[in-house]
């Protein structure tokens, strides 16, 4: 029986895929399997069954001790070939996203990365992802027999766990040593912030002149009970805020009840991230900034004057 094969280096994201995979498995009449790879893999299989996997392929091959896309792609390829896995569902983390096309190439498969929706249509999977820099959403079908899809985290809801068992298959893989070596890992100073679940969001962009001025944004956030988000340049180029706060195409897609975009011109790379907001507000000194067309309410003015006044008005 053909199979759907789920993999993520992050178990909790793999569980989201397994949860949704049950639906695909029934509709496409395929088995639902997952691959758990690397050190300690055999101890991690139970929850995969609890979320709905029928089989779990396990390998603790020494070449899989650390994540190297080349090696993991070969491992998934061999598992897919040995077990007739036709659909590969991966989580679109950075690692998943670089893994997907590599394993797809091995399988001669079409591939969609960063999928934001996947649904069954006429016995195939219709996959959506942002295109044209976020201006559009493309819906695509993969025409090749094998299909590889990397799905954005949190696209699918985690299902309920059930007390059930499945088949653990220890797979025999023929892997060479990775040709890349990880020599050092500098942990990022992460923040415990979850913008995807924020009810109110205050986002700031390049209109802010220096890091110290973040304090006026913080005041507003405090007054609103809001989380702070930002555009790419503030976290990647200037590093004033951590990447956990990046909103947009390469960051978080948020759905707060209120978002206030401050000093943000409104390029598509950012606005993709606030599409889900119920009410959008913009504060910008340029009355021609595209952000105003994508907002419910706007104030044209210098953020350094408007924001403190707004804090006053809120109190």
């Amino acid at each position, binding site marked *: 029986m053909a199979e759907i094969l789920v993999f993520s280096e992050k178990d909790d994201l793999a569980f989201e895929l397994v949860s949704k995979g049950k639906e695909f498995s029934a509709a496409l009449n395929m088995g639902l399997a997952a691959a758990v790879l690397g050190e300690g893999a055999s101890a991690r299989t139970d929850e995969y069954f609890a979320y709905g996997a029928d089989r779990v392929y396990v390998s603790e091959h020494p070449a899989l001790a650390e994540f190297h896309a080349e090696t993991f792609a070969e491992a998934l390829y061999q598992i897919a070939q040995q077990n007739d896995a036709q659909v590969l569902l991966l989580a679109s983390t950075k690692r998943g996203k670089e893994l997907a096309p590599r394993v797809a190439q091995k399988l001669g498969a079409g591939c969609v*990365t960063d999928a934001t929706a996947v649904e069954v249509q006429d016995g195939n999977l219709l996959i959506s992802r942002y295109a044209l820099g976020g201006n559009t*959403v*493309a819906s695509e079908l993969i025409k090749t027999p094998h299909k590889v899809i990397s799905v954005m985290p949190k696209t699918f809801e985690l299902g309920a766990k059930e007390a059930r068992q499945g088949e653990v298959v220890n797979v025999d893989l023929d892997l060479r040593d990775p040709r890349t070596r990880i020599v050092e890992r500098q942990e990022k100073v992460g923040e415990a912030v979850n913008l995807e679940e924020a009810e109110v969001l205050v986002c700031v962009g390049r209109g802010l002149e220096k890091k110290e001025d973040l304090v006026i944004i913080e005041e507003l956030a405090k007054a609103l009970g809001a989380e702070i988000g930002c555009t790419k340049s503030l976290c990647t180029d200037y590093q004033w805020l951590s990447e956990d706060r990046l909103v947009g195409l390469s960051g978080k897609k948020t759905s707060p009840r*209120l978002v206030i975009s401050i000093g943000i011109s409104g390029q598509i790379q950012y606005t993709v991230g606030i599409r889900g907001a119920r*009410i959008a507000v913009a504060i910008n000194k340029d009355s021609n900034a595209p952000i105003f067309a994508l907002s419910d*309410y706007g104030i044209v003015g210098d953020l350094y004057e*408007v924001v403190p*006044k707004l804090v006053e008005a809120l109190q």
Partner: protein
Amino acid sequence: MNIVVCLKQVPDLQQIRIKDRKPLVEGAPLIFGDMDKSALEEAVRIKEKTEGTKVIALAMGGAKLKDGIKEALAIGADEAVLLIDPAFEGSDTMGTARALAKAIQRIGEYDLILCGEGSTDNYSGQVGPRLAEILDLPQITYVRELEVGDGKLRAVRNMEESFEVVEAELPAVVAVADEINQPRLASLRDILRAARKPVQEWTAADLGLSEEEVGAKGAAMEIVSNLAPEQERKQIIFEGDLDEVTQNLVNALTKEGVLGR
């Protein structure tokens, strides 16, 4: 050392208009994506530090590429290979990677293949890893710092939780993030000089590729629709005295029921 930089012309996203949810791409000028420019800049910087380095710009596209490639040559590529052929039209990432790989094999000598971690239009990030697979090379993606020398590379990758420092032997495929550098602008003198640099044009037949292997016929993907999401915002702008407009905004937000914890 030979560095091949893969470039893709994309429509200038700032100039795409949406009408009835359909993107009007035809009017938008074609440019190289930000990350592609960073890949090129990085190649040129390596060349400036490493004697005997040649930078070859490789791109697949339409006739407009002949003009567009001048920018890459002006910035510092020594020569260019353009894959221009109606047979390539409609190629998806699989066909593109197949054609680029054939071209790289035809170029023959390569130590480093640089590309952007994604194109600015679709950002699917597929061509680099697919190329690496076809050419049987290691892939190093999301690179924000790169050092190359003595047949090796050392790269800092920007991952979710960490900066990961990796080493690999050359040849390798490296996909760069746009934060790796600030690409230079070409001077007028560079642009004039670039006109003398060699540009080759190769077709599918030159690469030994049939029409079934590339272009729309060789595509693994079928685009069912590509539309702007429906979105309607009220677009109410408050103008005038600052005390007044901020109060008006607070009133409006209160009415919407979005204030309060």
